[in-house]
């Protein structure tokens, strides 16, 4: 199916636009499936309920996170789409290059996106592996069989993405999301009824959470208010700077497609919220697992009939392939357009060829990370990746509205933000939140990404007037006011 996609409304697949952005021609419905399949990844669908299963209320932050992301998209990303469409950008680093005329900043932003996407691709494989493990059982050769299944799936993924580009995941997203909606709606109707209703589920979950180490709660406690809000806000702000989000956004045919989808995509947030609540169902059903990631698959296995279990598991496996393909395309674009291009000017045809080859390399690298790096590290890096990605916020989102910042001040802020993110994450053993001392022995527990980006913005704001006073020459702005409207 992914291969057939190359024939779907094609023009010349040697053009980067055509291969990487589906010819910038997707309408409201295709974009809805594509963005939905891209943003709500298999890993999300495994990890969010797992967090709720393990820690309770704090895991529900994914709901306000995916609620506030869309008003933001409606205003800010629609503006980005406009300038990208007018000036033919394929990546967000293309915009940074034109806006500031600064190659170092462009490369910094491109590498950030690349670094954030790689562990994310590896984690899609984790989503698949969790499912394969259910099927293949725990026999002596289970590990080998799982790995073979992973390698085969990923080889297919790499091949169809190479030939068809973004059209492949767009077409597959229809199947994936269809299966996913059926699965989750069935689960949310059927499983709670079997478990004695929501009243019983919440009560049983509250009891089970109390026994956890550290104990979880059903209602968010005051000491986690700021952590909750900052996780939701910080995640929402970084979501659309990720290369895979940008790739899907730019494939839209018009700004209206993006605006409409800002009102329609929350249907996926509702799905995610219901899925998060299945984490409580797993608690109420006394699902026993050492690894919280297995909570939902085990719940499905215990309650769904075999045939339907197949549909559910297929949904998650295919669900991993769609975002993985788009992430590979997005990161390949960043490398081909913004890193290679700065050192060696390619002709457009070569640039597309390089992007395609890089896309294969990225898939391969994702697979290697999954097979040879302990999974805890992939999860750490993915958490850290969100924090790194947000450090691109001032150079990209602020830049859509103002050119006041000096590019070298932004670069300095970015560098400090990256170092601060890594340092804070390392200090707390790679968790998402950091207890910031606020004096008098008090701490404010908040999302590392948000703390780091505040430092980042502060540095950029302080250095800008200094660099301007020093008359440090900044590059030219190639965009005009007319490009943004």
């Amino acid at each position: 199916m992914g291969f057939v996609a190359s024939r779907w409304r094609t023009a010349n697949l040697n053009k980067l636009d055509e291969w990487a952005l589906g010819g910038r021609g997707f309408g409201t419905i295709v974009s809805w499936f594509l963005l939905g399949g891209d943003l709500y990844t298999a890993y999300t669908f495994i990890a969010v309920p797992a967090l709720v299963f393990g820690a309770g209320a704090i895991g529900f932050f994914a709901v306000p996170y995916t609620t506030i992301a869309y008003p933001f998209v409606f205003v800010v990303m629609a503006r980005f789409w406009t300038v990208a469409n007018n000036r033919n950008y394929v990546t967000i680093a293309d915009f940074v290059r034109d806006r500031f005329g600064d190659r170092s900043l462009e490369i910094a932003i491109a590498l950030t996106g690349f670094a954030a996407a790689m562990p994310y691709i590896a984690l899609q494989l984790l989503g698949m592996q969790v499912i394969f493990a259910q099927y293949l059982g725990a026999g002596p050769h289970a590990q080998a069989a799982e790995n073979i299944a992973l390698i085969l799936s990923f080889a297919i993924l790499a091949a169809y993405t190479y030939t068809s580009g973004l059209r492949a995941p767009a077409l597959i997203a229809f199947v994936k999301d269809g299966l996913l909606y059926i699965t989750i709606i069935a689960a949310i109707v059927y499983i709670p009824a079997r478990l004695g209703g929501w009243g019983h589920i919440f009560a049983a979950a509250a009891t089970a959470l109390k026994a956890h180490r550290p104990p979880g709660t059903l209602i968010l406690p005051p000491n986690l208010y700021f952590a909750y809000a900052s996780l939701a806000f910080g995640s929402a702000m970084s979501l659309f700077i990720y290369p895979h989000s940008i790739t899907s956004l730019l494939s839209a045919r018009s700004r209206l497609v993006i605006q409409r989808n800002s009102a329609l995509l929350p249907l996926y947030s509702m799905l995610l919220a219901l899925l998060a609540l299945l984490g409580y169902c797993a608690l109420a059903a006394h699902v026993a697992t050492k690894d919280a990631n297995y909570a939902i698959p085990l719940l499905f296995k215990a309650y769904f009939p075999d045939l339907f279990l197949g549909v559910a598991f297929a949904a998650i496996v295919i669900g991993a392939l769609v975002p993985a393909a788009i992430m590979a395309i997005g990161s390949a674009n960043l490398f081909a357009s913004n890193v290679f291009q700065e050192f060696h000017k390619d002709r457009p045809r070569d640039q597309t060829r390089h992007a395609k080859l890089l896309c294969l390399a990225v898939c391969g690298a994702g697979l290697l990370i999954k097979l040879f790096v302990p999974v805890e590290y992939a999860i750490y890096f993915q958490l850290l990746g969100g924090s790194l990605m947000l450090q691109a916020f001032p150079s990209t989102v602020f830049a859509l509205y103002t050119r006041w910042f000096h590019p070298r001040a932004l670069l300095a802020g970015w560098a400090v933000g990256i170092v601060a993110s890594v340092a804070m994450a390392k200090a707390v053993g790679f968790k998402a939140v950091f207890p910031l001392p606020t004096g008098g022995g008090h701490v404010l527990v908040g999302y590392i990404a948000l703390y780091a980006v505040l430092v980042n913005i502060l540095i950029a704001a302080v250095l800008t007037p200094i660099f301007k006073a020093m008359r440090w020459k900044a590059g030219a702005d190639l965009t005009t006011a007319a490009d943004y409207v």
Partner: protein
Amino acid sequence: MKRRVWYWLLSLPFVATLYPPFYARRDPVIFNFPFFYWYQLLWVVLAALVVGIVLLAAGDKNDV
């Protein structure tokens, strides 16, 4: 200028969902769902409606 006025509506979901002291409570329970959960589920829908209203009032008209 008129367009900008409508855009202010889009700040509502931020205010409503980013201040947990508002909603981190159990009561009132509706359909056996604690307030903390149904309030946030409700805002998924309300935020979509708010965006929809702004889209109709101040969004693009042409799909070109």
